[in-house]
């Protein structure tokens, strides 16, 4: 446990990516099985405990610490795990903590009733850094700025194997990854996994830079499609089994039985999950309602039927076609649809355009008339490359809508921004009062955050716990993708993807927008 705690601390505090990779490779190299397998699972977020939950830890702590003082401390520190680690009042005990493997075994076998006592005694026995690591791993929220990809990169560095190969086998593996490490150590063959039946890392796009890219790119080399406002999924149909993964490789099939049960034919497809009748996409909010549930309700299945708009194909039946150019993959995808009529899948339309100006106009009208997020522009000769390769796929988002709104409340952020007032609620005029229309916590630089934090502290008129109400004097230019009717806000309006576009230090609050001004945005969607 000590070694793992040291590794976690180093990962949390070392800014250099290379040094993180070195530390990980060194740790995996010297740590025995199965400890290193469990460590890998913790670092990549693949390990969860049935009974050990943040709420349990919070209970354990608030039995020993006054809940009010705990609340103030949490507000200050901004990270539940770290608050618990720092506030635990009992230290000592001579017995060292068990190994990672023993610890996980304990967590999995201890009954719910006995867990609080176990956790309490572990916290007391731990040294300060171990306590921090212990809490982090029990709550499952590491928040140390480490991606699964970095961990895999370290495995590649440790073993000399290709990162791509590791990614390929990754989703077929089971804890504690004995066969993976045996292969990496050169002691066994590469794990054999049903190739078509597991998640394949997705190909992602880069934003187009209108100033720089457009002039250089020849429109004849590119195909365009609408950018759909749903969630990206990978559908895998193999030997009668269908799975559906989100872009991060989470299996979301259980919540969308209407889609997965409908798929006919084998293959690995890349598309956008949407809801709506007759392949007519409904607003993202509707999809959100279904995403919020692990299992679909009858009501949702009836009222918000889901479908997948398919735009690419990775495997045609069992053949890996990722190295083929987009034009050929598209042709095979269309042929596949021809052979396998679908009820909940359809093809994403390819837009015809002859120059960028024409596509820009289509993009503008698509946004205004149908609420599309923008267009995707794909190099016709490009293979399917996992990750975010440069120059192959571009997203060309529509220009955001903007509104000048007045800052109303500020709340302290969490994590990296824990001591700053970084979450802002803003509103627009409704007669003589300002009513909230949304909340944003990004879009500004670190330097601006400092200025905003200072402004909030100097202009507070009331505090409610972590929230401060401020003088209604500061105007934000807020950018957002769309506006929708909402019962949640007093204003009746909710913004999608709001972010602070600019801070209008110069603009008087009286000149901010009114609720009437918002109507045009509501009508557009």
């Amino acid at each position, binding site marked *: 446990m000590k070694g793992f705690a040291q590794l976690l601390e180093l990962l949390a505090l070392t800014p250099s990516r290379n040094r993180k990779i070195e530390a990980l490779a060194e740790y995996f190299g010297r740590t025995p099985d199965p400890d290193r397998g469990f460590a890998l699972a913790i670092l990549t977020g693949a390990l969860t405990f049935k009974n050990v939950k943040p709420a349990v830890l919070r209970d354990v702590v608030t039995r020993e610490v006054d809940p009010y003082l705990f609340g103030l401390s949490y507000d*200050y520190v901004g990270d539940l795990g770290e608050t618990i680690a720092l506030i635990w009042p009992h230290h000592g005990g001579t017995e060292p903590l068990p190994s990672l493997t023993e610890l996980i075994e304990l967590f999995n076998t201890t009954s719910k009733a006995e867990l609080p006592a176990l956790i309490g005694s572990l916290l007391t026995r731990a040294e300060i850094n171990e306590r*921090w690591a212990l809490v982090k791993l029990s709550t499952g929220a590491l928040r140390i700025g480490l991606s699964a990809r970095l961990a895999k990169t370290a495995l590649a560095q440790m073993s000399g194997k290709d990162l791509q190969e590791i990614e390929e086998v990754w989703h077929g593996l089971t804890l504690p990854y004995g066969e993976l490490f045996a292969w990496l150590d050169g002691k066994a063959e590469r794990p054999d996994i049903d190739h078509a039946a597991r998640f394949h890392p997705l190909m992602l796009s880069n934003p187009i830079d209108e100033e720089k890219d457009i002039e250089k790119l020849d429109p004849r080399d590119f195909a365009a499609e609408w950018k759909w406002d749903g969630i990206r999924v990978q559908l895998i149909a193999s030997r009668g089994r269908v799975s559906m993964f989100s872009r991060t490789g989470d299996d979301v099939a259980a919540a969308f039985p209407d889609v997965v049960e409908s798929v006919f034919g084998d293959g690995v497809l890349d598309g956008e999950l949407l809801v709506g009748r007759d392949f007519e996409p409904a607003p993202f909010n509707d999809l959100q309602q279904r995403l919020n549930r692990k299992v679909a309700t009858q009501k949702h299945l009836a009222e918000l039927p889901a479908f997948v708009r398919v735009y690419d194909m990775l495997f045609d039946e069992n053949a890996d076609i990722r190295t083929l150019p987009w034009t050929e993959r598209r042709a095979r995808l269309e042929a596949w649809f021809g052979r396998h009529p679908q009820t909940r899948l359809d093809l994403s339309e390819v837009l015809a355009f002859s120059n960028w100006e024409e596509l820009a106009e289509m993009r503008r009208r698509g946004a205004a008339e149908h609420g599309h997020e923008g267009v995707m522009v794909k190099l016709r000769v490009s293979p399917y490359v996992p990750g975010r390769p440069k120059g192959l796929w571009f997203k060309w988002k529509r220009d955001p809508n903007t509104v000048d709104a007045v800052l109303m409340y500020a709340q302290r952020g969490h994590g*990296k921004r824990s001591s700053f007032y970084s979450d802002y609620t803003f509103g627009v005029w409704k007669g003589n009062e300002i009513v909230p229309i949304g909340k944003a916590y990004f879009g500004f630089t670190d330097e601006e955050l400092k200025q905003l934090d200072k402004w909030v*502290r100097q202009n507070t008129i009331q505090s409610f716990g972590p929230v401060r109400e401020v003088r209604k004097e500061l105007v934000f230019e807020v950018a957002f993708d769309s506006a929708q009717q909402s019962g949640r806000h007093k204003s009746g309006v909710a913004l999608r993807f709001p972010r602070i576009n600019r801070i209008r230090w110069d603009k008087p609050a009286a000149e901010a927008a009114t609720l009437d001004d918002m109507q045009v945005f509501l009508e557009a969607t």
Partner: protein
Amino acid sequence: MAQPFLDRDLRVKPINAWIDPPRPQGRAIITHGHSDHARPGHGAVLATPDTIAIMQERYGPDCAGSFQALDYRTPLDVDGVTVTLYPAGHILGSAQVLLEHEGQRIVVTGDYKRLPDRTAQAFELVECDLLVTEATFGLPVFQHPDPQTEVVRLLRSVEAFPERAHVIGCYALGKAQRMISLLREAGYDVPIYLHGAMLSLCALYEERGIALGELRHALDVPKEQFAGQIVIAPPSALKDRWSRRLPDPVLCMASGWMSVKQRARQSGVELPLVISDHADWNELRQTIADTGAHKIWVTHGAEEALVYHCRQQGLEAEPLNIQAFEEGEEEGD
């Protein structure tokens, strides 16, 4: 207890003298030399000889109309109010102020700590009726570790990265000298390099009897020579062009705030050293209990939690909300 003769802005009413006033006042009693307590421009200043020396070093010999030096434990009658200074253990010359008037005893702690520190006169407990306590680390998440374990971590890192320099962000007054002294106690006896901003105050400490070992100005030193060395610099220099003169530096920061890893990350600190010159939560509570005071005023920091704690103990407690001291990294934490 009768109405306190100290008001909530820390003005001693019968003699119109202020303790650590943020704005120039006619009469000021200064607890210690940090700039959020000792400001220039007062009429008459009463403080320990060390504090006066520090103020004159930082702001110039004429930074107040007049100075009166008062040694520790020496009662001074000022127009009917007896003022006595006791060591606060925070930095060199730091003092708690005991005020006695018509049978009432009031102690203003200033900043303090009770852990041993070779660079500051050791804290002495003073019993009183009204205690005005600081609360910089007044939350139960602050339980400072033994500073020597932090130094051991630092020295281990120095050993592990012989090709890199370790640059430690320290406030120039107090923390820098304490850090150096802790290193010396741990047996680190090679030269320690200093940022220019550290030089005069380190010299002042040495002149006043605090030995710091061999110190070198980190100016015009070839880059390679810093490999494996320890450099002390103000926190602002860590991210500044200044530290480019160092080979692949490990950024360290010595501060009580560093126990919060999220905060260390936020400031880009790679090796946080939890070394504080303030009382932690347990020391604050202990001190409040030990003074026997039944009325507690809380200022400088996380007032809410400490006030809550005092009230839970049946004590009368109030936050002072002194404007100039909003939370944040003040000098010398």
